[in-house]
């Protein structure tokens, strides 16, 4: 193909004819306009866009309808900053006014028979036994605690979300723990022998008055076991009780009252207490040795489902028509020979593809955003009606940062996938193969991961383009809670933007390959 420089031609037209039209310009803006005209004037493509939006909304609607929850347990408390938390433990405590400190030796933590007396008791790695200073025995109030855990060593935790790790080596009891109060500051120390002390962490818990409750506590969350074989995942949350033994308890400062046991928990509506069928918490004191047996947890409560994400589940269905649109936007030109006209008008092929990507990306972003907004608006009410309501599932508002991120992110996600499809279409130059490849790569991992072992499933979710779906996640997970995190249920082990970054990287690489191929190969 020889390039003719029209502007540099010094010769007048031999016929003397001059076009009455002003000379066209070949800027990028004109290219965008040309591509927009192509997209807008093919009626089938507009219908495909509409179909993608409708498919997204309809599938979101269906998956919202098909999700029910019993609404969660009735032991939920709300912390000072509005987080829903679990705050259930056995507390052997006394009041402390002003500065002071408490010291204890945790002699041992053993599992205790729980609900199923016939099964061997299981000890959760996050069973907690140690010292706590709390504003009051009302669940949800501020606290700071230094504790020993069977699986995660010594920890200093405060106000449910704060967590600092102490020593993990030699976590086996006995272990000396100390909690000191200086003004508003609470500091946790640990020691192996009761003589040499190491600071673990310090914090200023919310809402502590001059007089607080200090003492020993034990609590044990459910031990989660998972049996995951192909095509079925069995998750068993075994409510485990734990028995911790304490001795050498000393308290310094203006301590009033003798040690008295209390169960910190919200008054449960069920007669059997918070955990039906569980033995109740107990504590005994015998000649300076305290034995506390309890079940529960002091931690943020993480719902196992994200209603916002659940309301956007139709996105993947909407991607199927969008994949077709993206592939067709270039393969139709190859098929009809239109590409010759396009490249004659604008010989710089990379720019043509860039213009196509920009136009297609912008249009599908708008369509995706629209679909996400409508889906979220419709499914919110349905999910609330199906049991996804406060306090277990906090009300999602349009103005929440995470909700906005999920909605706008859905638009970005759909745009990126469509541009990916455009690049694949350019590389393969074949409509049928292009559509099949994009659909299979985007959709199949989601179908297959529920049957794969957890490691393989996580790998698929993190390293294939479907990683981009993490942008729809609005829940914040803390590491100090053992949760069943199943990729097929939309649980991602990394942040929302990282996943979208993976998809963006795929898009960039595919586009670069497409430009390279487009310039290299004949049309």
């Amino acid at each position, binding site marked *: 193909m020889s390039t003719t420089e029209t502007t540099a031609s010094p010769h007048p037209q031999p016929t003397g004819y001059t076009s009455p039209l002003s000379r066209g310009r070949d800027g990028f803006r004109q290219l965008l306009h040309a591509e927009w005209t192509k997209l807008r004037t093919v009626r089938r493509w507009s219908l495909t866009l509409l179909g993608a939006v409708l498919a997204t909304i309809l599938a979101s609607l269906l998956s919202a309808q098909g999700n029910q929850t019993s609404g969660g347990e009735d032991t939920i408390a709300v912390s000072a900053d509005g987080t829903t938390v679990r705050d259930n433990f056995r507390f052997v405590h006394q009041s402390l006014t002003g500065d002071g400190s408490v010291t204890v030796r945790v002699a041992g933590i053993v599992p205790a028979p729980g609900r199923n007396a016939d099964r061997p008791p299981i000890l959760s790695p996050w069973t907690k036994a140690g010292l706590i200073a709390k504003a009051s025995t009302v669940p949800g109030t501020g606290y700071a605690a230094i504790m020993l855990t069977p699986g995660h060593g010594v920890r200093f935790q405060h106000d449910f979300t704060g967590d600092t790790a102490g020593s993990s080596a030699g976590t086996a009891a006995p272990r000396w723990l100390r909690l000191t109060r200086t003004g508003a500051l609470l500091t946790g120390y640990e020691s192996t022998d009761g003589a040499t002390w190491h600071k673990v962490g310090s914090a200023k818990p919310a809402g502590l008055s001059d007089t607080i409750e200090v003492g020993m506590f034990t609590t044990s969350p459910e031990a989660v076991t998972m049996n995951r074989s192909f095509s079925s995942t069995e998750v068993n949350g075994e409510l485990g009780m734990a028995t911790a033994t304490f001795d050498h308890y000393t308290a310094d400062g203006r301590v009033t009252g003798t040690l008295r046991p209390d169960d910190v928990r919200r008054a449960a509506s069920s007669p059997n207490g918070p955990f039906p069928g569980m033995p109740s918490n107990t504590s005994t004191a015998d000649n300076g040795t305290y034995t506390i047996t309890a079940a529960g947890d002091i931690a943020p409560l993480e719902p196992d489902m994200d209603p916002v994400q659940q309301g956007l589940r139709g996105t993947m269905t909407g991607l199927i028509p969008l994949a077709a649109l993206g592939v067709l936007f270039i393969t139709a030109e190859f098929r009809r020979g239109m590409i010759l006209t396009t490249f004659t008008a604008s010989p710089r092929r990379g720019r043509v593809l860039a213009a196509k990507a920009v136009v297609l990306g912008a249009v599908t972003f708008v369509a995706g955003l629209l679909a996400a907004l409508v889906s979220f608006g419709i499914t919110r009410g349905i999910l609330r009606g199906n049991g996804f309501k406060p306090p277990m599932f906090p009300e999602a508002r349009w103005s929440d940062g995470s909700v906005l991120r999920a909605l706008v992110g859905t638009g970005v996600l759909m745009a990126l996938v469509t541009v990916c499809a455009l690049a694949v279409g350019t590389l393969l130059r074949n409509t049928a193969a292009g559509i099949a490849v994009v659909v299979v790569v985007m959709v199949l991992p989601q179908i*297959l991961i529920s049957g794969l072992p957890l490691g393989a499933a996580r790998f698929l979710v993190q390293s294939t383009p479907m990683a981009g779906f993490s942008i729809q996640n609005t829940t914040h997970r803390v590491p100090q809670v053992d949760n069943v995190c199943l990729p097929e249920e939309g649980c991602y082990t990394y942040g929302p933007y990282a996943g979208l970054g993976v998809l963006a990287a795929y898009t960039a690489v595919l586009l670069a390959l497409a430009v390279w191929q487009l310039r290299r190969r004949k049309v």
Partner: protein
Amino acid sequence: MPAPITERSSAHRPRAAVPRAPDHTHRGQHPLRLFPAAVHAEWTKLRTLSSTWWLLAAITAATVAAGAAATGALSSEHCPPPGSCDPDQVRTALTGLWIGQAIVAVLGVLMACNEYATGTIHTTLTAIPDRLRVLAAKAVLLAGITTATAVPAVGGSLLAARFILPTRGHKLAHPAISLTDGATARAAIGAVLYLVAIALLSLGLAFLLRDTAGAITTALGLLYVFPLLAGFVNSPTWQDNIRTFGPASAGQSITATHHLDALPIAPWPGLGVLALYAAAALTCGSIALCRRDA
């Protein structure tokens, strides 16, 4: 004047051939009126496209590779009491059907849509004006080549699993995969029929929609949207309903070899659901083909 002479002589040639032609065309049946000849014509069209062979190779390769990968990923580390995990090995070995079916759908769609895209359909319908015969010839040929591809794909998958499973260190609760086992044989035969049904479903859609992109998208949507939705809902009733009425998820119940009572739909009725989809698509496709201008 050499040019007119050659023109005249070339004009003479067909006329000279005319007397021989009536023997063939006017008396009795034109060869293409016979069904085997129609199938043969389709076969010629199909085998002379290099894309056909690529697609057939891809079906076998992708099915076996994905099945081997899935079998290789089996692990018993998450089974607390050893031996309590009881994965359906045959079903796992046939995981590749999920990919193979997409390529089969492409094959089925292209068999009709390629003719519409290039205009060959006019020639085909001129040669064989009985349109149902064209569709039947295509369907028979498609079923034949899909079977010929699915047999090595399914056999290869099972064979690969037979070799891979012992290397995974499994304490196998079941004996090695063998076709002498009734359920395994049913799964293997069913898997072949499953792919054939999907090919016919795609062919029907292709005649109905006549547009490559539209037919592919519809076929893939039918195959993949139901299992997607089933994974997104948590209510068991919904899951079972979606899996019962979705063509792919219902059809794949044919590959299950144990825990059959846990299936949303029994193996053969499940394949029947898929067959109904295929029959409906073919019926709609043939009505569209006969009623509409080509």
